């Protein structure tokens, strides 16, 4: 039952990326701690959230590009880590590493869903031509409904299958890999800082710009 509830919550959060609202409840910095709180370990959720938020700072849906779903990546990693090995930093990092391929799988399913939306769009168009205007609202609600169903099923599958894979993998890791994962817990945010600073390379701070021009002269 808990698994179904988490799958539906995950789907609702993912709907925020494109389908409804864009209130940013889908961002890792919010959904990570949310699942952490629900599973009694907000610290792990928040830490994974800030790692993903910083490293994927530029990942936003623009135009026809379908970005990697960071919500599914962060949420499932937090759920696995907090459910199976609560409080373990090593497990949390491994969970995130395992969650990334599943996020790619989710993206492919999302693309198929958007292709299916084209059929609904044509159904609405035909309806309007035939004077069935109620299809406009129905089309919108159908789009949302199919998304939530599709996304919930994907979350359910990923949490279940990925969770089993993650638990087995973590239990059989050699000791030096545990040490490395512990290090990665502290190194990944630093990698994130580097990625964030890279974004600021084009910034023009007026004072520095003026000083630079004076130096050139």
């Amino acid at each position, binding site marked *: 039952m808990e698994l179904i509830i988490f799958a539906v919550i995950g789907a609702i959060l993912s709907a925020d990326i494109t389908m409804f609202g864009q209130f940013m409840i889908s961002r890792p910095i919010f959904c990570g701690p949310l699942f952490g709180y629900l599973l009694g370990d907000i610290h792990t959720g*928040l830490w994974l959230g800030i790692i993903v938020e910083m490293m994927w700072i*530029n990942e936003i849906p623009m135009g026809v590009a379908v970005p990697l779903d960071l919500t599914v990546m962060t949420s499932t990693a937090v759920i696995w880590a907090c459910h199976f090995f609560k409080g373990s930093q090593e497990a949390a990092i491994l969970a995130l590493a395992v969650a990334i391929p599943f996020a790619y799988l989710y993206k492919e399913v999302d693309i198929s869903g958007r292709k299916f*939306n084209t059929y609904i769009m044509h159904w609405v168009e035909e309806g309007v031509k035939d004077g069935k205007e109620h299809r406009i609202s129905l089309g919108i609600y159908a789009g*949302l409904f199919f998304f939530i169903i599709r996304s919930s099923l994907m979350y359910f599958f990923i949490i279940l299958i990925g969770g089993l894979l993650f638990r087995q993998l973590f239990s059989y890791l050699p000791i030096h890999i545990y040490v490395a*994962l512990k290090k990665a817990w502290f190194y990944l945010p630093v990698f994130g800082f*580097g990625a964030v600073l890279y974004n600021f390379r084009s910034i023009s701070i007026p004072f520095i710009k003026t000083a630079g021009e004076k130096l050139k002269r």
Partner: protein
Amino acid sequence: MTKNFVFLRTFFLQALWNFERLQNIGFLYILYPVLKGLYPDKEKRKEVLLRHLGFFNTNPYMVNIIIAMVINSETNIASGKEQNLKKPEMIKSLMAGPVAAVGDSFFWGTWRPFVSFIAILTTILSMNMFSLNYFWIAPVLFIVLYNIVHLAFRYWSLIVSFRVDEKMIKLISKLEIKYIAEIFRIIGLIVVVLSIFFYFKIFGMVPALEPERLGFSYPDAVMFGIIMIISFFLGRIKPVVMFYLAIILSFILGYLGL
């Protein structure tokens, strides 16, 4: 009442997002109750509805400006003040790109990262200053700060666009959004530098994390600095590649005992 109803419907703009015509049905869904009021005759309404089924794509936060201008235009056409039936389509096609550029660069390129940096700094500070019970502050701060500005802008842009119509384009350009964005980027940079400073101080200077490595002792902050420089120069590569590189680097450093 109608304006508030339209405002609520704008959240559904992308509910039927599709690869062929992107936000077309979402746009029509927002517009539909207004068009129903303007054109009581079903046959005439059908022509108008079909006009709005073409390709449409813009930033979802900026659509309110276009919606208000299209509603104003449709109202004028319905009342006979406007003769050009193609004007609503022209507004849509001419406005979608430019306003999307403003929305993308300000909300997604500047405001969201800025609010994220504030939340990250809060998280790092809460590790040092507060007990573990206060970790909820950062995500709540992120959502509240982001949405105060985002929702206020969406509502304001709709209401004002209804009133000033095409003058809204001038109003937006007068807002100097590029200048505001640059200020937030500078403040954001300061916040990031502060976050790095506190992160290095809290996690990099702890005596327990200073073992003998390479025959002498040095704080983890040294390793953090080297990693951050590497990461900065790898900034161009994909985040996924960078993530796994970080894990591999941790394996190597762990194996070497560094």
